[in-house]
Each structure stands twice: as structure tokens, then as C-alpha cells.
């Protein structure tokens, strides 16, 4: 009788499981999260079996590839604790890095007095709200930001952003608004001039989605926040450029950067009165991560931020 060899069997089981990067550490973190939630009481000598089984269930889910941040419920982002829920993209460390650098350079500029205060900050595709919240947290002792507005198309994300504001005790700091908007359609979202526009748009193109994206991300994170090509960059150039003083957009490939660069060069030729400088920023992993642009008014923040391509 033919039988399936144990090696094949083990192989097929293994292929179904997305093994964690870092098994022992992750199990420890899951345990800690159970302790934090009170499912497991550390002080008692004997731990209740329900607590153990809860933890085991979490480990099992993790083994099947559910992102650790959804299981634990939050992810550190700079000095913030950002809550993470299903259907909302988990903040990445690359984002954390560039936002932290941006916050630092805003702070240095405000110490040197080279920028005016009372700026407007607008964040598109905000997701968990991590970008504006970290910038607000870092600058909360100064009065740099007068108004902060976060937009998203997903109701889940809007709810979560609202919760994150409260969770991090930032609701009283500044005028912080969370609003529903379809960025690609509307152009009348913000009446005043926007001093700084940040965005972490979906930037994985459809053709490369299958091949380049990690299994766990593919299965459990919202495709709405992942798949996109040039839409948001086209939207930036065509609709927003006249209304803003500076922008920082996260991106995934040189194609997107080159598009923005060419359009900015065209824009500078057409409007010599409102020229934009342009730069790119790499992450610690050596990958291109951001494109940023700025006009004369916000220039000083970006002088030491990344690699400048077009000077003004």
C-alpha cells in the first residue's frame, strides 16, 4: 500500500504555517500581552488554565501567520503606543523612522527659530493615525502645529485613529480632526493653505503584489491600504500642489519617485513664482522610502532631512 512519507507530510504541514521570524521572542511578547490584559495573573503562584489556553490560542494564530500586532493589539511607534485592529494597516518601522526624523528636524528648526509657528498639518490615508500623532507628540510642548487634520476612506481606520488620539492622551493638545474623505475625488477638503502634507499611500503595484509581498501581509492586512500605483502621486501633483507648502509621501519604488520628480520639474518651469525643491529619503535598510518637496516658506525643515535632488 502506498503511503505518504513523513517527510512529505511534515513538509506540507510546514508550508501551511507561516513561521514567525523570531519564535521565542514572539511567544514572550504574547505572554506579556496576556499579563497586561489581565488574562494571566503573574502574582498568583498557580496560573489559571484559561490564561494558558488563551495564550496558546494566540501562539497558534501567530503560527498561522496572523500579524503579531493584531494579536497583541498595539505596536510601539516612537514614544507612542498605537492600537492596531483588523482591517487597518499596521505601522511599519520604516514609517516610524522617517516620521521620527521629520519630527526631530521640525524641533531643531523651531529651536533655531527658522520656521514660523501655527502650521497646518494634513495627513492623507492616515490608517492608525500614527504619522500625525507622533509628530504632534514630539512637538506638543511647542506651538508649531495649530491644526491637524487626518483623512481616510475606511470607517474602521477613522474609528481607530479616534481611539488612538484618546489612548495616547493627545485629545487636548491641539485642534485634531479626523474626517472621512475620498482623496482621489475631492479637492475641497481643507480650505486653508496646507503647510505640511504627509501621506503613506498604498504603493504596491498590482503586478508585483503576488511576488513581492509577504504571505502574512497578503492574507491579513487590508489590500485597500496596500495596492496602488501612481494614483496618489498623480493626485498630489494635479490637485494638491497649488494648495500646499510642503509634502512628504512614502513610496515603494523609483518609478513613483521619478514620476514626482519629472512633474515637479515641469511645475517649476511653468510657475517660476512657486518653485518646489525636491528630495528623497532612504531607510536604514538602504531602500528608497520617501519623496518630499517644499517651497520657500517651509524650506528650512528639509535642508538636513534627506538627500536633496532639486534645490531652490
Amino acid at each position, binding site marked *: 500500500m502506498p503511503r505518504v512519507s513523513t517527510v512529505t507530510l511534515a513538509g506540507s504541514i510546514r508550508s501551511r504555517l507561516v513561521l514567525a*521570524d523570531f519564535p*521565542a*521572542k514572539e511567544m514572550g511578547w504574547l505572554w506579556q500581552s496576556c499579563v497586561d490584559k489581565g488574562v494571566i495573573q503573574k502574582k498568583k503562584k498557580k496560573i489559571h488554565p484559561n490564561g494558558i489556553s488563551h495564550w496558546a490560542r494566540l501562539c497558534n494564530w501567530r503560527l498561522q501567520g496572523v500579524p*503579531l*500586532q493584531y494579536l497583541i493589539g498595539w505596536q510601539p511607534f516612537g514614544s507612542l503606543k498605537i492600537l492596531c485592529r483588523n482591517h487597518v494597516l499596521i505601522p*511599519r518601522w*520604516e514609517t516610524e523612522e522617517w516620521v521620527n526624523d521629520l519630527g526631530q528636524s521640525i524641533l531643531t528648526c523651531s529651536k533655531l527659530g527658522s520656521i514660523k509657528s501655527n502650521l497646518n498639518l494634513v495627513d492623507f490615508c492616515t490608517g492608525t493615525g500614527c504619522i500625525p500623532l507622533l509628530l504632534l507628540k514630539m512637538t506638543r510642548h511647542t506651538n508649531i502645529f495649530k491644526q491637524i487634520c487626518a483623512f481616510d476612506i475606511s470607517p474602521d481606520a477613522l474609528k481607530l485613529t479616534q481611539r488612538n488620539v484618546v489612548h495616547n492622551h493627545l485629545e487636548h493638545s491641539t485642534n485634531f480632526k479626523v474626517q472621512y474623505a475620498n482623496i482621489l475625488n475631492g479637492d475641497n477638503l481643507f480650505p486653508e493653505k496646507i503647510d505640511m502634507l504627509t501621506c503613506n499611500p498604498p504603493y*504596491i503595484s498590482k503586478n508585483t503584489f503576488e511576488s513581492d509581498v509577504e504571505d502574512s501581509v497578503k492574507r491579513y492586512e487590508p489590500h485597500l491600504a496596500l495596492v496602488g500605483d501612481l494614483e496618489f502621486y498623480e493626485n498630489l501633483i494635479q490637485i494638491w500642489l497649488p494648495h500646499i507648502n510642503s509634502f512628504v509621501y512614502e513610496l515603494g519604488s523609483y518609478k513613483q519617485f521619478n514620476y514626482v520628480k519629472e512633474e515637479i520639474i515641469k511645475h517649476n518651469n511653468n510657475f517660476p513664482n512657486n518653485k518646489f525643491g525636491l528630495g528623497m529619503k532612504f531607510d536604514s*535598510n538602504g*531602500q528608497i522610502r520617501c519623496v518630499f518637496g517644499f517651497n520657500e516658506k517651509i524650506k528650512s525643515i528639509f535642508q538636513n532631512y534627506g538627500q536633496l535632488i532639486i534645490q531652490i
Partner: protein
Amino acid sequence: MLCRFSGIRLEVSNMTKCCSFNSFLRLRSFHASRFLNEEQKSDNDVIKRLPQTLITTADAYTKKLLTLEDTLSQGQEFNVESQQEFSRLSLINGVFEHYKSLLTEVEELQRMANSDPSLKEEATDELQLIIPTFNECSDKLFEHLIPPHPFADKACFIELHPGVGGIEAMNFTQDLYNMYTGYINNKRWKSHVISKQKNESGSGLLGAILSVDELGSYNKLRFEAGVHRVQRIPETETKGRIHTSTAAVIVLPQMGNESDKEMDAYERTFKPDEIRVDVKRASGKGGQHVNTTDSAVRLTHIPSGIVVSMQDERSQLKNRAKAFAVLRARLAEKERKEKEEKERAARKEQVTTTDRSDKIRTYNYPQNRITDHRCGFNIHDIDGVMSGERLQEIIEAVGKYEIQQRAKSLQSLPTCK
């Protein structure tokens, strides 16, 4: 027959008594040895006078105190620093005055003993009484007068690494870790674990870094730096042989105050081209494509070649901040050692200090004994020390020994500082 039995029984009971008495003696022997030392000292009638250099420093302190008193009494300025300085100086001055009065008394008595034969007996009796007090006072003054360790008021990191001995060494590292956490808890100091790597295949620790946040803890714990040796029968040993294994303890001063507000405060003390930062996941596109939980960071300090890696936090930024804190501490320790070496070379006198010998302590489980090799201090209570309760006694003994050594070096070279 009965008699014989009872005789044997008597012998047996005597023997057990003897045994327990012996072990009692052994338990108490460290007290006894201390006591003996003191007796020997007083027998020798050695008067511990302080060298002239220190007396002049003490005089200078007195002068400083007087001027400070003047300015403070005018009440024009009040700041915490000068208040602290004042209280420190007046403490030293009090001890110094006591020292001087005792010294004159001793000299008077000695003169009397030498000149007047009728009073000789009384005078020597008196001397016998007064010399220990004088020596104590002299020691105390000495402690105040010698310059404190440059990092004495700093908080510290404790790093533990297993040495030779495989899994047994890792187990011993775990024991040391428990000892220090116990000690810290006993002292009610604040501390947190910076990184801790368990041995995945088996028991024990592959390495750990503890941050002790209490200011001044470096001054106490710096005596712990060195190689700790353990002699015992490991749990894994089947034939009952005693193994000798080691673990290394490194104690580093914390060079600043870590706070959330200034998470990258350490990072800013380095030039960007001195440091190379590596993150894991060097391949692939990153960003939205992957959701990694592996946030390990590795720093390389290029001028010195020191490498620090950190992977315990879920946030890469926090790992980075911690790694920079550890790097800063290692560099500071290295600089201090180099400076000390230079000073020592300049003196041309090889003074043995506490951190020169590498193997500093032996934990002998079968004999229930811990020996500190620097000062030859013995304590027969493994459990008490390993729980951290009686570690204090060893630290105090080494501290005393260090002060004695420094005193010797100062007294043998009265003109050099």
C-alpha cells in the same frame, strides 16, 4: 553490656556535638577573622597617622568651609549646590577636628609614658583604649579625603556573560543574575532588564544586561566586575564530579539620564560617520511589503571596533536608543581604564587595585563557601549570598580593602598625587 552501649552512645552524641560545633565555627569564622584582625591591630599598637599630603588637603577644606560659611551667612545667594558643598565640608571638618583632638591626646599619652616612669602603666592602659578609636577616626577621615571614583555618583549597567563550562556556565550566569536582582530588590533600587537571552536549548542565560537606575549604584557594584568562578556538582553531572565554570560580570557606568523625551540623546553625542547602523532584513523591498517583528539593531563604533546589538524591544527606535546607551557606557569605561593605566604608568608604581585581578571570586558549593580573592574574604553562606541578601557584606569587605590599598599607595608615595 549496657555500660558499653551507653558509652558508645555517649561518644556518638559527643561526635555529633563536635560536628555541629565545627560547622557553627565555620559559619562564624568570618566574624571571627574580622575580630581577630582588629585584635591584632590593637595588639600591635600601630597608630594610623595620615600622610602629610592628606592633612594639607584637610586644612584646605577647612579654609574653604570658613569662606563658604561667610558667604552663606550673608544670605545673598542660595543655591542647592553650595548647600550640599557646605554640608559635605562641615562633615569632613567635624571628623578632622575629632582626628586632631585624638591625635594630641595620643601624643600627650605617649610622651607621658616615655618620660614619667610612675605614670607609664596608666598611660599605656589609656593608650590601649584610645588607639582603636583613633584608628577608626583616621580611617573615616581617610575615606572622606581621598578623591572619589570619577563615576561614583552614576547609575550603572550590569552585563553578564557565561565563560568556560558550557551549560553549567550558563546556569551559573542565571544564578548570578538572580543574585543581582535579589540584591537590587533588597536595596529597593529601581532597575530594568535591557536585554536577556535565554539558552534556547536547555537552561541558563546566554547573556543579560541589567540597568540599575539608582544614582551612585555604580560605586557599590563596580567591585563586582571580573570573572566569577563556581565549583559545584552540576545538575547535569551523572557521576558526581565537581566542575569548575566561570561567568564574566561587566559593570559600566551610565553616562546620562535616559528619558522618553530624549530617546536619541545618546545618539546625538556621536558623529554620524563614527557609527554604522545595521538592521536585520537587508534583502527585500521593506515598507508595506513586509510586516516584520524582528527589530534587531546592530551598532558598530568604527574608531574602537565596539559592536553592540539589541533586539529585545518591538520598536526599532527603542532598540537603537538602548544600543546607543550601552555603547556610550562601554566607551566611557574604556576611556576610564585607559586613563587609569596612564596614571599608573606615570607613577611607576604597580599598585594592585581591585579591578586588576581577573578572577575575583569563587563560589564553592560543596563547602558552602564564597571567597573573594582580592581581599581574601570568606563567607560561609551560599544561599544567603546567592539570594542577594548577604552580598552586601562581600561588597563592603572589598570596598574596605580598596580603601586600604589606596591608603597604602598614598602613604608609600607621600609626594605624588
